[in-house]
């Protein structure tokens, strides 16, 4: 059978959603940001809430997220996306509002805004991409960098005595009463991408039912920051990131899950 017989519109199984623009993503080859963008847009597509969704773009690698997501977006000052999202949500309580932030944005400069937005229980969704490094500025040490991990500002590996411990901001946030749903997922294999999509679906569903803040962490790779090929970095992530940042739901329906 010829391939041309298969490639017909009626046989279409999967194509990039039109909620993503046709612009070439500014991310490095193999970066998890692209996948995370796409599944987020797929969720909005499947829920049919494109006209009612407002996203808040952060500062970091994903600073140009508003160029790639074909929905209403707002840029925020570094780390202040949850504060901006709070304002938008309070003006339009019926709109879906989400922030899309990296670890330098959410867990470093924006820790105060994140924690207070979560503590107030703002009815928004926060997407947190954790790759353990400051990607855009050239691979410096982030608060989430693992122990012993080499970065340009910790060339001998992160030393816990002088540089402190990697922060588990997701577990920290799960303890706040205003937060309804907290989960940690990944996007490096098809199986995890499907799971993450379900988690984002649930997060938006919680926002629809006005139950409180939903927080989805996505553990991602940064192959150029980690100085590896994309597939090597995915394997390294499984071996090193997942033991410290275990995947799965952390808080469901306002109750922390004790393993």
């Amino acid at each position: 059978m010829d391939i041309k017989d298969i490639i017909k519109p009626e046989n279409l199984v999967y194509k990039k959603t039109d909620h993503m623009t046709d612009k070439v993503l500014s991310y490095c080859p193999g970066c998890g940001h692209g996948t995370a963008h796409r599944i987020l847009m797929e969720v909005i597509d499947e829920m049919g809430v494109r006209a009612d969704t407002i996203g808040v773009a952060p500062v970091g690698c994903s600073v140009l997220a508003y160029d790639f997501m074909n929905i209403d977006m707002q840029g925020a000052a570094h780390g202040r996306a949850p504060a901006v999202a709070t304002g938008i949500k309070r003006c339009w309580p019926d709109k879906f509002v989400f922030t899309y932030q990296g670890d330098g944005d959410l867990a470093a400069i924006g820790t105060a805004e994140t924690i207070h937005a979560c503590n107030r229980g703002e009815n928004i969704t926060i997407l947190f991409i954790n790759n353990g490094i400051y990607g855009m500025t050239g691979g410096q040490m982030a608060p989430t960098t693992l122990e012993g991990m080499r970065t340009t500002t910790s060339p001998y590996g992160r030393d816990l005595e002088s540089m402190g411990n990697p922060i588990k901001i997701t577990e920290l946030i799960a303890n706040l009463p205003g937060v309804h749903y907290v989960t940690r997922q990944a996007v490096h294999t098809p199986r995890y991408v499907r799971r993450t999509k379900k988690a984002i679906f649930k997060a938006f569903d919680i926002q629809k039912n006005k139950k409180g803040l939903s927080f989805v962490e996505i553990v991602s790779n940064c192959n150029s920051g980690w100085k590896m090929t994309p597939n090597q970095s995915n394997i390294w992530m499984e071996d090193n990131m997942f033991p410290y940042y275990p995947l799965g739901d952390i808080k469901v329906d306002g109750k922390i899950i004790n393993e």
Partner: protein
Amino acid sequence: MAKVIGAIVVDEEHCKGCEVCVVACPTQVIGMTDRVNSKGYHIAYMETPESCTGCANCAIVCPDGVITVYKMKKEA
């Protein structure tokens, strides 16, 4: 018995050659071309098109969303 056969179409200009799809494919259909696109990246292509089942795993993990998947039933 009806067998399912699939095919992928790669947007060659936008493929960044990260090879994430190569390991995601359960039937090892995808390979990388020797030629490069205008950005200098090798492009993913179907090396063994007869094994493709149209499961869309490659398209789901593709960070740049360049893969479009088609699938149809084949009468054996």
